[in-house]
């Protein structure tokens, strides 16, 4: 389970398109633009790229992106299952490929029009009838109208509230913090549009106990990240964002979005598995993290993540939030780009890019003296997480 290549690789380039609700161009154009921007940021020619790792839901396959970028050959390519849960996993598998020698420069990306084309959150009501195992899993929920990611998460949220005493206002604190950071991030979709807790509470229900402002909004856009060995990274223009560790996790009775059958559905055991690996591989602990990007497609699942990483005890994330700990002057400034909720919902890849900026010292909401930045990926699916560190 442990990886023995801690801090052998680094992120050297990040690049994104604008984030919008209507990009006006195809997802392939977005993917190629984002990759070009990441390569330019890294100062690496496309001809050097020999690996691509992306993750499911991605419709811009690596061969077509490689063709457009004039990448001559790929010796490592993979697509990780389970969508947003795999965001940090792409970096982990890129690092693994580089460490093993199967590739030297690996691009990881996500690009889509999940708002202006097929709306990602509109529901799976038309996805039924197939006999394959994945289709069959929807049979246990879709006939009852549990059709959208928000509805799947709401079931966890109610149970979490019941056991922890967390309230809708506690979920709201996550949204308010995200939107506060987004308000000062010109790249964020919600730039200059902060919200108050009252506005959160007054926003309409999507799926109780989730208000509208508990839910990220589908976005159009692309984000790409270039990974190479730390050795090569040191010869490139940007300070390397060292991949201290990256880990994936799937655990007992794991289901996609609907792991409702475990003993305690208020916890996220697959995230605990990631946390255990990260702490073990790096020798770091919660107090060593100066800034984090905690996945926030829906605010409720933000809270148990804090608990699984040990930033607070089980059931005490609400107090952690009430004490202002995720704000700029708190113990753990979080989602300084605005998160998925405030910047854009790019399935977590933009959160990794923000952690890179925090390591480089170039974030618009820069936290002082960042040594280590934690990033987590999508929850309620098999997930992943990583720690980026300064190069010393």
């Amino acid at each position: 389970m442990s990886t023995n290549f801690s801090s052998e690789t680094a992120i050297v380039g990040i690049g994104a398109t604008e984030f919008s609700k209507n990009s006006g161009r195809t997802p392939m154009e977005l993917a190629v633009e984002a990759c070009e921007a990441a390569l330019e940021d890294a100062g690496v020619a496309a001809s050097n790229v020999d690996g691509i790792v992306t993750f499911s839901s991605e419709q811009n396959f690596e061969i077509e992106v490689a063709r457009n970028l004039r990448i001559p050959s790929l010796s490592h390519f993979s697509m990780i299952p389970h969508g947003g849960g795999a965001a940090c996993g792409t970096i982990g598998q890129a690092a693994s490929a580089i460490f093993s020698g199967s590739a030297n420069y690996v691009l990881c990306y996500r690009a889509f029009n999940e708002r202006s084309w097929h709306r990602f959150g509109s529901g799976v009501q038309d996805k039924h009838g197939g006999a394959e195992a994945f289709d069959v899993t929807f049979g246990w929920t879709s006939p009852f109208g549990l059709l959208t990611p928000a509805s799947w998460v709401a079931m966890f949220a109610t149970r979490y509230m019941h056991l922890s005493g967390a309230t809708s206002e506690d979920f709201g604190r996550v949204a308010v913090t995200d939107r506060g950071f987004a308000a000062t991030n010109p790249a964020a979709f919600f730039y200059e549009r902060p919200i108050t807790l009252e506005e959160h509470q007054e926003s309409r229900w999507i799926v109780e106990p989730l208000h509208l402002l508990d839910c990220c909004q589908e976005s159009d856009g692309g984000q790409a990240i270039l990974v190479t060995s730390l050795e090569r990274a040191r010869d490139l223009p940007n300070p390397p964002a060292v991949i201290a560790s990256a880990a994936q996790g799937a655990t007992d009775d794991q289901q996609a979005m609907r792991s409702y059958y475990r003993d305690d559905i208020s916890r996220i055991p697959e995230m605990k598995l990631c946390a255990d690996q990260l702490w073990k591989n790096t020798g770091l602990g919660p107090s060593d993290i100066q800034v984090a990007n905690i996945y926030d497609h829906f605010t409720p699942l933000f809270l148990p993540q804090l608990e699984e990483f040990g930033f607070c005890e089980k059931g005490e994330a609400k107090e952690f939030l009430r004490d202002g700990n995720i704000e700029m002057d708190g113990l753990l400034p979080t989602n300084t780009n605005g998160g998925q909720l405030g910047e854009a919902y790019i399935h977590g890849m933009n959160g990794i890019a923000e952690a890179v900026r925090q390591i480089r010292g170039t974030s618009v909401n820069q936290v002082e003296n960042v040594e280590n930045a934690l990033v987590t990926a999508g929850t309620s699916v098999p997930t992943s997480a990583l720690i980026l560190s300064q190069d010393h």
Partner: protein
Amino acid sequence: MNRDLSQTNEPAKSDSERNDFYNSLISEVGSAGKIEVARDSVSEPVIRSWCDAMSESNPLYINQDFANDSKHGRIIAPPAMLQVWTMSGLHLGNQFQRNTEDSPSAGVYQLLDEAGFTGVVATNATYHYDEVIKPGDLISASQKLLDISEEKTTAIGVGHFVTTETIYSDASGKQVGSMEFRVLKFKPGTGKKNEQAEQKPPRPKPASNSSTDWFWDACNNKELRIQSCNDCKNLQHPPAVRCLSCGSVLLDSITTSGKGSLHSWAIAHYPQVPAFDYPLIVGLVELEEGVRLVSNITDVEPEELEIGMPLEVHWLDVDNEFTLHQFKPIHDEKQESEIENTETNNNNQTFNGDQNNSETKSEQRHVSKLDPETVQIGDELPNSPVPITTLLIVSTALATRDYQDVHHDPKAAQSKGMPDIFMNILTSAGIVSRWINDWAGPEIDWNSIDLRLGTPNHPDDTMTLSGSVTEKTEHGNQISLVISFLGKNDRGVHVSGNAKILLPENSKEA
């Protein structure tokens, strides 16, 4: 004629054309049909079939010994069957042929059908019961067309109300009863409610394969089954192809008790998928057997949801081939007993069209009578929830010899502008009568009942009957009561009206 044709292909009628059409309709008003003699005389088997379908257990209709000792000295027909005896019955091939030739309303119906008013729903019926009808009586009917309304815009569509009066007589020509009956003949697809209902697609069906078909097949038999391991007895859900505890391939399933508790919930508001009604409550139910599953939680208000609340399964027939489990709260006995109890029987007893239950139900019903002294204006009848099932609608339609396709064929009902099959008015009358008999006792005399129909009763509805005594009149030793009643389903009032009954003269001594 299907809905699209009537809605879009038909050229809009001018006012003068509409007037001409209406004039041709009302020229029929006042016409009387020839006397229609029932094909068969009143018989006990037909009475019993009707009582079975209605869950009517009045021994006066079905129990020879009881009836022999009654003032009638023999079994009598339920008064609510008045209309049944001369119903034309089943005519396969051309089921309206007989009506078309003989009854004045049929001629008008045909004119209306040809003009696109192909939908039909009964809206009012008033029955007067003049004489008791007994097995052996041969009933005849004579119908007169009383009125045809101008074109009206109604919730279910644009149409004309057609009112008829039918006099029922016995073989000697003596009037035994009468019925004033009003139907709405409407153009399918022209009502607002109706458009919504028709556009409502079915729920997503569960994706399934040969590893999981057994679960859904069991649901279709109204059985909630959970996968079990033959080796270690582990229970698991969703089903897998190995035991998740011991790895065994010897997997089977058990039938659960259908009881459990609420482990978590979500209330969907948005986005809204047309197949569902919102807000939509979805629960994670922990079964008594210790396994969880997702289902809808019904019969509960969102603010009443409480984690841990006890739940029990019930079943939703989504369509002819697909039944889905649902859960609803189990109300504790304390709450039940708080409902006001009278000396009479069947308080809040659930009416059930299920034939398997009807025997138990009739055993539970005791023969009892109201005390004419103590009954007074304002007395309430016990509320009675009536689950409306496909079986109930179809079996009562057949028991009332009503073979109109809208009462048994969902596709036909849809083509005539309704979302599904619906209960006929003879059954609404029968069920209300049954409920009043249950309350007042078997030996009351029926004088009359009038019914106004509103929202149709479709499968999966529950109609709850409520009512109270609104008039009490003493004529010497005989007391008559008027009971005002209301039958409501989730969408509104299905039936309302008044029934007039006479209490038995000797009941004081009983």
